[in-house]
């Protein structure tokens, strides 16, 4: 017994309405936007650049001229943090789009075509899950310096898509049996058109949520790898390299070098997660216990 809506409300407007009602999610979105502004526009308004040295201020705590303080070598922490955040944001976004995209196509193809395509896809997924991703990326890390650090993003995405692909595959398997897919098949619509026009769009809520989760996963993966010197390589800067450089001073009075970027990192991941959570509720709201009957 589902009450029919009194007036036609388009689906995206409804989703938007639901999203806006979750204030935390909106706050998260706002924060993410803020971080973008901070990372990309900030350097234009702040007087210090990330590669500038201030010979008169080594290891200074936050002050009015150096808002986040300086490092041992005289670099400005805030500038470094802004620069690092740029990397983290790009890694998160591009990586998420890539990995969700690969997962969607691979999973849907496996689920829809079955047979050999499916078996090969599963074998590839199993293989990639078993291969030591950390090792591979670590070993290849010297390749990442300079312009080619995008290879790093590619590699991260390459190891991120497998579990999602499995879920897409099982969703495709059940969707394949849905009547609107049969209707399209019996009309004569070609297979890939069915996948791209009917199957994937009906998983879009899952894919969007997955992409959002991937953003935070990838940002955290980068931090983890860079922590050991394997991810982003000097002279590039990311939040991970900053944490790696300064975690040992966390217990000293110079701990600001660690805590400030760490705090921003936490805030960024939290903001992304809030957006993801809000999206999930907006796209697939649970009906609550018991539902309507």
């Amino acid at each position, binding site marked *: 017994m589902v*009450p029919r809506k009194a007036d036609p409300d388009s689906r995206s407007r409804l989703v938007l309405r639901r999203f806006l009602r979750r204030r935390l999610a909106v706050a998260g979105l706002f924060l993410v936007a803020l971080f973008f502004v901070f990372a990309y526009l900030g350097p234009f308004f702040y007087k210090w650049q990330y590669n500038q040295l201030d010979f008169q201020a080594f290891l200074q705590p936050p002050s009015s001229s150096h808002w986040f303080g300086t490092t041992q070598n005289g670099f400005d922490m805030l500038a470094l943090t802004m620069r690092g955040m740029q990397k983290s944001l790009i890694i998160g976004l591009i990586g998420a789009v890539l990995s969700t995209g690969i997962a969607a196509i691979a999973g849907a193809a496996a689920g829809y075509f079955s047979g050999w395509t499916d078996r090969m896809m599963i074998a590839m997924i199993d293989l990639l899950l078993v291969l030591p991703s950390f090792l591979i990326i670590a070993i290849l890390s010297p390749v990442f310096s300079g312009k080619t650090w995008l290879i790093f993003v590619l590699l991260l995405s390459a190891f991120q898509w497998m579990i999602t692909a499995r879920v897409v595959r099982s969703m495709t398997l059940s969707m394949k049996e849905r*009547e609107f897919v049969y209707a399209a098949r019996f009309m004569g619509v070609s297979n890939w058109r069915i996948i791209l026009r009917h199957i994937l769009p*009906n998983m879009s809520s899952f894919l969007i949520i997955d992409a959002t989760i991937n953003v935070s996963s990838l940002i955290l993966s980068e931090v983890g790898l860079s922590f050991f010197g394997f991810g982003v390589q000097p002279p590039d800067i990311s939040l991970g390299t900053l944490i790696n450089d300064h975690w040992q001073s966390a217990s000293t009075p110079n701990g600001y070098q660690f805590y400030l970027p760490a705090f921003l990192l936490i805030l960024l991941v939290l903001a992304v997660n809030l957006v993801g959570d809000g999206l999930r509720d907006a796209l697939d709201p649970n009906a609550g216990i018991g539902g309507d*009957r």
Partner: protein
Amino acid sequence: MTAQPLLEVENLSVTFPSEAGPVAAVRRLSYHIMPGEVLGIVGESGSGKSVSSLAVMGLLPLRAKITGSIRFKGTQLLGQSDRDLSAIRGRRISMIFQDPLSALTPVFTVGDQIAEAVLIHQKISEQAAMDRAIELLELVGIPNPRQRATAFPHEFSGGMRQRAMIAMAIANDPELIIADEPTTALDVTIQAQILETLDKARKTTGAAIIMITHDLGVIAGAADRVAVMYAGKPVETGAIDDVFYRPRMPYTLGLLGSIPRLDIAERSPLTPIEGSPPSLINLPTGCPFTPRCPMRIEKCEQVEPELLVLSASGPGHAAACHRSQEIEQQNLKSTDVFPAPVIGEPEASTVPRAQREKVLELTNMAKHFPLVKGAILRRRVGTVFAVDGISLDIREGETLGLVGESGCGKTTTIMEILNLTQPASGRIMVFGKDTSGMSAQDRFSIREDLSVVFQDPLASLDPRMPISDILAEPMQTHGIPATERANRIEELLQIVGLRPEHASRYPQEFSGGQRQRVGIARALALKPRLVVLDEPVSALDLSIRAGIINLLEKLKTDLGLAYLFVAHDLSVVRHIANRVAVMYLGKIAEIGDVNRVFDLPAHPYTQALLSAIPLPDPRKERARRRIILKGDIPSPANPPSGCHFRTRCQKFAGELNDQQRQRCIDEEPSLMEQNGPGGDHFAACHYAESYAVLDDVAGKVTQ
């Protein structure tokens, strides 16, 4: 001696908060039930019948707002604590739910779950409770109860699960059993078994039963009194005969008139009720049936009628309509109140069948599937003989109904046809062309002439596409230019009774009936010659079905279409089909002209099937002789040798001698002509004997 009512519900109202506003699911419902009687509550989706019974049990979610009074033997139930209500649930009042697979916990054995029902209310040992559980399983007719008690719910068939639920419900000898759509999810022959079991349970415990269903036939056979609900409110109540033979509220009139009848051969069009049940959010003032009621007057929109007892009718017969006195005085019938459309006969029917072109021909078609067990270690352990060699044909302009219960293979059959590939054995000829030799190009062009309408209109339309895109898709795929498409879309919408402005909307914004019209429009887009319909009205509300059935008939006549109409509801098939094929376990049991087969069925299965279907005619229902088959439908992976039906056949179990039985075991029967040549009536039984099942009235006889 005035007995105390067992349960007295007064002005019960239930409202749910929702995103779009408060949903008034039940509005001022009042009824009572006496000890030992059976009260039927009938209604479509949105009528509030299930919600009201959950309210009695106190099982509504916390966010529901409930007002009114529910008295059980004088004690007020509303407002009691969970602890106090728990003492009553399962002990004095118990409930049977609709879908037994989801209603039983998957991780505990059936025996444990029944024993639990006992242990909650009685202080006995676990062993004693288990013994009682086994006793109950035997009572409800489950063979090998001791063994079966250790099985899990998913290992039971649908019918057996429902019996287990009944066992659980009567475990503590309750005084009231609420059965919420107990047979809706079951096959017809299994439904007959369960209704019989329920009746037995009632006689054993002496309990009263509230039977909630949308199936008027079931109510006609089972209930003493009935309450018809619409939009959360009772609109007519009374003794069963009064309401069925002398309905005094237009909704009841319309409902009874819109149901196709199994036992009447006359092909008059059904009287449809226009529109669909209203949304329960922000119900307008006045009678909720007004927009659909042909008898509406101005007062109907302003004042909601009260349920008033009719003066000149049976005791307790009450109707909620401002004009029910008028209806009573003039003794109006549904045909008087609801206009019936006029539908002619298709052109092709004037040409004799044998001379018309064959649009579809199946010759000994078979389809097998490998049986795969285990979720992790998938291995093939056998074969499912889904379709085991069937032959039929459909001529131009003709409608063939394909009927049968679960596992009979009707869905597999149509899927095979629609796939246009070579079957495992046998031959499929579509428009004279053999599917085994077809190239992809051939198939693609045939698809212009062959289309399909599915059962669930919500699932058959892509929720992400607006109607215009849905209708455009077949045309786009087959290369029809954009301008022509736009014109055709408008034309199609008009043909199926929708408006052009509907084209930009999405499926979810429409009612079930409207969605199915879109599905039908889509099937007509390329001007097909043969349309396959897979249970096109099963998922729709009763009051809407008539409209769709009439539409399908009209289209058939106007456009000269041939239909392959799959259904499990034989009354619909009787109404719309020219010929019918009855399938059982992958084979055709009986095939022929629809009136011949239904009036004088020759195959024992057809006879049992027809006997099991409840008719919305209380007198007839009470007087009918029923054939109740024993046991469950065998698995298609392991069909019986010889005649597939012999394990449940009432003839096999009864009249045949051993030598005859041996023939059934050894030799598979083939379709043989019945009642003389040229009569278009064939049955696959060695000992086929026609008799008029539907007119067989002499009390109930079970096998």
